[in-house]
């Protein structure tokens, strides 16, 4: 229960006060009317007595009466019985009282914190107090109690009357008639001989004062000085002292009176209308109490508002009638006020209190005299004789409800009367004992109504007894309420009892009991009462020691519901709003929605559409658990309300709650959207909004850009380098303001989400933006024109709106409407702010504790001056290639901006995929793509086919081709591209060596010719996918040739190396590729070259069908040493061996370029290894050995493929590279497929490092041996049994170190098969030689072999051991022997003996 202004004692005391009636003569009435008051009203402000009165109780004890209030009322006679309920007029009055008493705006509210709830509510409820006061005052006088029966009657006559005494007589008779004639049941009178108090009213302004005094003297004579009074008033004239400010004590009392008048008038005029309309209201609102049944109440807002205005009109009309009600007591001075006060005091103390005292005494005497009779006898006689007090059954009320009714003079009632009188004069002790006695009597008589009344008053007087000799008997009250309610069906009395009891319980801190009591009192018969009591119950819950917040909220809702049923919208709204505080954002969405919905409706009907919009909006924003139809209804209501708000002011667009903008998913794209293809041309893909953001790819692009920037800035990436980001999304780094170029568009993609189950349709979406120059806020909102129609259906997320604009601000603006069906009906326009929250910070401790977000500047671009803008187009760009295929395409660079650009370069993830050609050779190629059709990509020379032709050689510096890094400068004319200019360049492509789909990324870089701009450079991305299919597989191996050195003319020592090239057609496509032709084999190396094609079969142009394999054999020789090698510049020797008619110059553009690109990795390794041993030659065995086996020969196989495609034969060309590193090791053009790494057992101990193995195999190749001897030798064994054959053993040192060599001819190898063969011949002469060979030295050693008979012998038995000279500690290693050297020894017949051989 809320706090009250009055204390409990005051309140209870004031609830029961002595009643005084007033009868006025017409003349007297006229005088008081001057003050705009009647007599009763005139006295009202002075009815509370400030001084103490005294009364003697029956035992002659003086009883102090203090703070007494009397109630003076004009006698209003009426007929009819007392009803158990309030009449409609009274109800309306109460309704109006509550309606007029509203909480002030911004009134002081209590803030209460319980648990995690913080509640804001008003602690006082003045409307409830007003209601209570009015309710108690309007209590009808009942038969079973006498508290509001009139005790006295004031007879007022004016002194201006002709014969005032006669008037008094007349009034006195009138009073008598009213009381005793039985015509009127109302008013009721306490005691048969009512105190009559004669008042002579004298108007000083007009009457004759002496006459008045004379009359007063006469009255004193007649009625005694205690029974009459002369009241002088109206001493102020209208005209005089108009300015004097006199306090108006009436206003606070009479304001209720005015209301009362109004209501009675309204009831008269609109008696039929208002109850009807309020029925309509309650009917329409009833449904929303707890079941949200809006389906049938669509459009109910319209009717509601209509009814509401109707009621308002009705209520306000009489207001106009009572004009000038504001000024009361206009003719009264402050002196007059004192006079009146004095009069009331005089009347009470001289007239009323003695009268009461006298009556109490009388009653007491009666009771005492009767005390002798025993109670039981008394009742027995009553039963036997039924004497005097026949229990009369009231016909109007059912028998069972109240039991019997006593006649007015019944002795049981006397005691009650006495109790009431004692109570009124504040003698509570006596009153309690009387009530207690009366209660017993009534109960034994089963007079329930009487008993309940006695119980109620007994409890009250027990409570009011000061010093509290006994505890407050709460159960008396409970019984009384129960009886009133259930037995007597008298809700009014029950309500009064409950109000009193609740207030008393509250004062004792028994909030829980009070709440239960109040809740019990709610019933269907009065919504207003139920509402008020529920609200008080809610306040009880919150005021408990452990506040019950949720109960408070729930009962507030119930109260709100009842208020709205009673037509008290404002109170209803207030209740719901207070309850909302508890339910808000706590997960009880269903309840929250319901409250919001009700708040919305009430606000709307109360002409607070803004609040209504907010409430409805809340429903829509919340994660709704409602059904689709319910959501549809909500949305419809929202749109309706919203529309009405918009109708009022359309200056600024309000916020729309729907659809939800997923702001973090917003993507911002700077620049034009790319045309992907233009005829034959294929534009660079760049970045488009269709692409998903990919962390890896963006890192890759960033790396490429870094490479480019580094290459521009001499290898250093500047500290302030930032990656160019065209498309910003939630994964990109948005900490810096993005840079946007003036006059280039910015595209914003916004993602909307419809959280509802109802589809929404959006139309006319546009983006609002603001531009501010240099930070000054000279900005205005501008709107982009964009018409998009979009329907978002159930809970769908849609990315909508590619808004094109040139600068922007954070706001989307669109029409919102629901579904298709209501498109034309309910369309509202609003906007939504686009505010992007940055990622959550998680670095410092504070960040982790709180939820902080970093900045996100996606939508705050800085606009920079014009920058060049380049577009790149590709012509004849293939999508599929054979591995190693060479294709020529064209690339076009267009400067589409107004600013010149320069510094064009490109970086790629696959630099070996393409080349722009080296500067030296480009001019030769035709510039236009059309003229070069069907032409070979290679530069060729026609040469005659010569068998056994020797390779033609070209010496080329690697610097002509290779670039320092993956960045390639694009050779355009003049290195700048003026605005609007475009240039076309040829571009050679080579299919990747590995089959499959390759993603190849290009990043083009360019900068403005002007320097020092905010944007240092711009980039353009391009991604192509190339599908590479298998072509040829080339395996190459090299081995030392055993051909003696003198066979090759220009070999100076180490002899030739044989290179075997295995080519296999591994193309798998069935129809497409017919056959491959190996056109040319070229070599490129710093030290070696291919010298000769030595295929055994003379099939030149080598053809390879599907799955065919060919073996080519070449001899390679060392290059001639060049002077250039001494320089830092490395020269490569390109040797071409063409198998066809044309010689392709492998050192020129496409071929050479790709060679350098592909081999760039491998050759760089080779170089680093080659450079090492020059410093510590010989110190490291392995390096020496390596060096000796090092070949570093790169073989380029150029092929042509005949392909049938669309019945047309195409010739494709390509080249494959094989890098031969060492002799004896096979190299392949196909990089071995990386096998999926098998699961390796986890080892917990590190394995022992493999033991160092001496490089025996390598060391065994230090020395190359050759045996020179005649192939056949004829010897006449008949003549000479010993045949001596001279054999030369040539030793050539392959290494670059001095080598010690031991040649042992006698050495027997352990293998048995060799034993067999050469057992029959022997070396003669010196059988062991120790030699030292200088680097690359060739030494011949003459040996002699001795044969005993003819046959075939293997001469290759000498064992050669070698070791580098420096390695003294090492043992000589056995050198690898060449293949068997066979000699045929013939036995000659005598006839053909040559004469010379005989010797």
């Amino acid at each position, binding site marked *: 229960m809320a706090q009250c202004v009055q204390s409990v004692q005051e309140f209870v005391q004031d609830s029961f006060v002595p009643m005084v009636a007033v009868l006025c003569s017409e003349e007297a009435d006229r005088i008081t009317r001057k003050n705009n008051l009647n007599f009763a009203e005139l006295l009202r402000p002075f009815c509370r007595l400030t001084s103490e009165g005294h009364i003697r109780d029956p035992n002659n004890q003086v009883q102090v009466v203090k703070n007494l209030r009397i109630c003076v009322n004009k006698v209003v006679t009426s007929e009819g019985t007392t009803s158990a309920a309030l009449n409609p007029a009274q109800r309306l009055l109460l309704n109006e009282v509550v309606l007029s008493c509203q909480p002030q705006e911004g009134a002081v509210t209590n803030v209460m914190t319980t648990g*995690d709830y913080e509640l804001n509510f008003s602690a006082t409820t003045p409307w409830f107090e007003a209601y209570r006061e009015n309710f108690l005052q309007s209590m009808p006088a009942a038969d079973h109690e006498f508290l509001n029966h009139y005790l006295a009657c004031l007879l007022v006559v004016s002194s201006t009357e002709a014969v005032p005494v006669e008037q008094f007589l007349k009034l006195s008779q009138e009073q008598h008639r009213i009381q005793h004639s039985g015509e009127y049941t109302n008013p009721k009178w306490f005691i048969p001989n009512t105190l009559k108090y004669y008042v002579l009213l004298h108007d000083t302004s007009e009457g004759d004062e002496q006459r008045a005094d004379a009359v007063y003297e006469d009255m004193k004579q007649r009625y005694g000085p205690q029974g009459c009074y002369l009241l002088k008033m109206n001493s102020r004239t209208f005209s005089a002292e108009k300015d004097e400010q006199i306090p108006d004590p009436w206003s606070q009392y009479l304001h209720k009176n005015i209301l009362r008048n109004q209501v009675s008038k309204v009831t008269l005029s609109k008696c039929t209308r208002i109850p009807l309309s309020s029925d309509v209201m309650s009917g329409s609102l009833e449904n929303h109490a*707890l*079941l*949200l049944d809006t389906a049938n109440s669509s459009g109910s807002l319209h009717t509601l508002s209509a009814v509401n205005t109707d009621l308002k009109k009705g209520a306000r009309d009489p207001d106009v009638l009572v004009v000038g009600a504001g000024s009361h007591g206009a003719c009264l001075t402050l002196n007059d006020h004192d006079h009146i006060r004095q009069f009331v005091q005089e009347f009470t103390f001289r007239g009323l209190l003695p009268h009461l005292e006298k009556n109490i005494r009388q009653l007491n005497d009666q009771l005492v005299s009767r005390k002798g009779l025993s109670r039981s006898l008394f009742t027995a006689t009553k039963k036997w004789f039924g004497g005097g007090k026949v229990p009369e059954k009231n016909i109007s009320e059912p028998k069972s409800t109240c039991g019997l009714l006593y006649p007015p003079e019944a002795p049981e009632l006397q005691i009650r009367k006495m109790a009431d009188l004692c109570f009124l004069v504040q003698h509570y002790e006596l009153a309690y004992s009387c009530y207690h006695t009366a209660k017993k009597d009534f109960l034994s008589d089963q007079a329930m109504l009487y008993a309940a009344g006695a119980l109620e008053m007994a409890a009250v007087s027990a409570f009011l007894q000061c010093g509290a000799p006994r505890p407050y008997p709460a159960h008396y009250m409970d019984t009384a309420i129960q009886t009133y309610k259930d037995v007597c069906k008298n809700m009014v009395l029950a309500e009064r009892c409950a109000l009193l009891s609740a207030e008393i319980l509250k004062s004792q801190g028994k909030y829980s009991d009070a709440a239960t009591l109040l809740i019990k009192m709610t019933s269907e018969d009065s919504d207003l009462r139920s509402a008020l009591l529920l609200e008080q119950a809610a306040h009880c*819950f919150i005021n408990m020691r452990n506040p019950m917040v949720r109960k408070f909220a729930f009962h507030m809702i119930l109260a709100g519901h009842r208020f709205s049923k009673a037509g008290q919208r404002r109170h209803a709204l207030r209740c719901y709003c207070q309850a909302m505080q508890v*339910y808000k954002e*706590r997960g009880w969405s269903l*309840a929250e929605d*319901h409250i919001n919905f009700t708040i919305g409706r009430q606000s709307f009907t109360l002409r607070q559409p803004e609040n209504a919009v907010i409430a409805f909006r809340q429903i829509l924003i919340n994660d709704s658990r409602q059904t689709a139809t319910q959501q549809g209804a909500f949305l419809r209501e929202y749109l309706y309300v919203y529309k009405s708000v918009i109708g009022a002011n359309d200056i600024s667009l309000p916020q729309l709650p729907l659809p939800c903008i997923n702001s973090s998913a917003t993507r911002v794209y700077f620049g034009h959207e790319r045309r992907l293809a233009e005829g034959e041309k294929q534009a660079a893909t760049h970045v488009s909004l269709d692409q998903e953001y990919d962390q890896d790819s963006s890192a890759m692009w960033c790396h490429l850009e870094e490479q480019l920037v580094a290459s521009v800035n001499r290898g250093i990436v500047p500290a302030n380098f930032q990656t160019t980001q065209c498309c910003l999304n939630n994964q990109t780094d948005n900490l810096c303001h993005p840079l946007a170029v003036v006059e280039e568009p910015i595209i914003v993609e916004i993602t909307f989400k419809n959280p509802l189950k109802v589809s929404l349709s959006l139309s006319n979406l546009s983006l609002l933006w603001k531009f501010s120059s240099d930070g000054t806020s000279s900005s205005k909102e501008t709107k982009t024109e964009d018409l998009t129609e979009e329907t978002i259906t159930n809970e769908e997320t849609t990315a909508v709106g590619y808004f094109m604009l040139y600068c922007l601000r954070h706001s989307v603006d669109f029409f919102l409407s629901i579904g298709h069906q209501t498109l034309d009906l309910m369309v509202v326009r609003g906007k939504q702010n686009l505010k992007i929250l940055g990622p959550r910070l998680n670095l410092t401790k504070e960040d982790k504790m709180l939820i902080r977000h970093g900045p996100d500047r996606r939508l705050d671009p800085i606009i920079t001056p014009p920058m060049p803008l380049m577009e790149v187009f590709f012509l004849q760009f293939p999508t599929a290639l054979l591995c190693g295929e060479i294709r020529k395409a064209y690339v076009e660079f267009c400067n589409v901006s107004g600013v010149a650009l320069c510094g064009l370069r490109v970086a790629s993830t696959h630099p070996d995929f393409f080349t722009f050609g080296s500067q030296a050779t480009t001019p030769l190629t035709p510039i236009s793509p059309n003229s070069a059709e069907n032409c070979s990509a290679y530069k060729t020379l026609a040469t005659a086919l010569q068998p056994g032709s020797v390779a033609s050689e070209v010496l080329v510096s690697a610097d002509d081709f290779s670039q320092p890094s993956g960045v390639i400068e694009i050779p355009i004319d003049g290195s700048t591209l003026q605005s609007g200019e475009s240039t076309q360049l040829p571009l050679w492509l080579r299919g990747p060596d590995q089959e499959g789909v390759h993603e190849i990324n290009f990043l083009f870089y360019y900068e403005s010719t002007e320097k020092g701009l905010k944007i240092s450079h711009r980039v353009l991305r391009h991604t192509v996918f190339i599908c590479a299919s298998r072509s040829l597989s080339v395996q190459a191996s090299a081995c030392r040739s055993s051909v003696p050195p003198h066979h090759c003319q220009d070999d100076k020592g180490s002899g030739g190396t044989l290179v075997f090239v295995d080519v296999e057609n591994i193309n798998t496509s069935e129809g497409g590729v017919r056959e491959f032709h190996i056109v040319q084999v070229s070599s490129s190396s710093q030290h070696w070259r291919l010298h000769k094609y030595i295929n055994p079969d003379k099939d030149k142009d080598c053809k390879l069908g599907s799955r065919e394999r060919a073996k080519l054999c070449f001899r390679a020789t060392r290059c001639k040493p060049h002077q250039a090698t001494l320089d830092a510049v490395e020269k490569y020797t390109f040797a071409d061996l063409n198998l066809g008619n044309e010689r392709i110059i492998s050192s020129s553009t496409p071929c050479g370029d790709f060679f350098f690109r592909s081999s760039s990795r491998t050759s760089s390794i080779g170089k680093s290894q080659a450079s090492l041993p020059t410093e510590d030659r010989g110190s490291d065995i392995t390096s020496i050995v390596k060096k000796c086996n090092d070949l570093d020969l790169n073989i380029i196989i150029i092929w042509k493929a005949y392909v049938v495609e669309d019945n047309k034969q195409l010739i494709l060309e390509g080249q494959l590279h094989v890098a031969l590193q060492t002799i004896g090791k096979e190299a392949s053009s196909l990089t071995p497929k990386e096998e999926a790494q098998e699961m390796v057992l986890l080892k917990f101990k590190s394995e022992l490092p493999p033991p160092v193995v001496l490089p025996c195999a390598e060391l065994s190749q230090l020395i190359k041996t050759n045996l020179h001897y005649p192939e056949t030798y004829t010897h006449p064994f008949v003549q000479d049994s010993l045949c001596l054959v001279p054999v030369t053993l040539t030793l050539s040192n392959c290494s670059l170190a001095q080598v010690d060599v031991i040649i042992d001819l006698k050495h027997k190898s352990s293998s048995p098969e060799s034993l067999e063969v050469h057992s029959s011949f022997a070396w003669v002469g010196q059988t062991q030689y120790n030699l030292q060979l200088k680097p690359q030295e060739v030494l011949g050693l003459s040996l002699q072999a001795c044969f005993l008979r003819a046959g075939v012998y293997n001469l290759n038995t000498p064992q050669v051991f070698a070791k580098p000279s420096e390695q003294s500690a090492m043992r000589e290693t056995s050198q690898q022997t060449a293949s068997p050297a066979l000699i045929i020894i013939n036995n000659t017949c005598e006839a053909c003996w040559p004469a010379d051989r005989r010797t």
Partner: protein
Amino acid sequence: MAVCIAVIAKENYPLYIRSVPTQNELKFHYTVHTSLDVVEEKISAVGKSLGDQRELYLGLLYPTEDYKVYGYVTNSKVKFVIVVDSSNTSLRDNEIRSMFRKLHNSFTDVMCNPFHNPGDSIQSKAFDGIVSGMMVQTG
């Protein structure tokens, strides 16, 4: 059997509410929400007197005109509320107790699910099944 079964988080927001006459869901929401006041009152009262030896079953929270509301609190202060029709007089205290125990067991299973995020509303078929078994069969 029950007409409404609710599981309320420690912070007093609903983890799970299911009621039989679905059209009157809101009413049950209000009822359950309001009953939390009584639950809290009972918890604080019990905490004082018995200390750790706490009875999880709270008994009848409060009777309304049409329903009886029973409460149960786990040790982690998750509340179970069962609303029973007042007209159903056959239900004894022991049966309510066993219903709560069953509910608690099933709830524990839900919490043991490693994929369940504590604090999220319960979306478990098994739990649904247990609840359905305890609800009044309509139709």
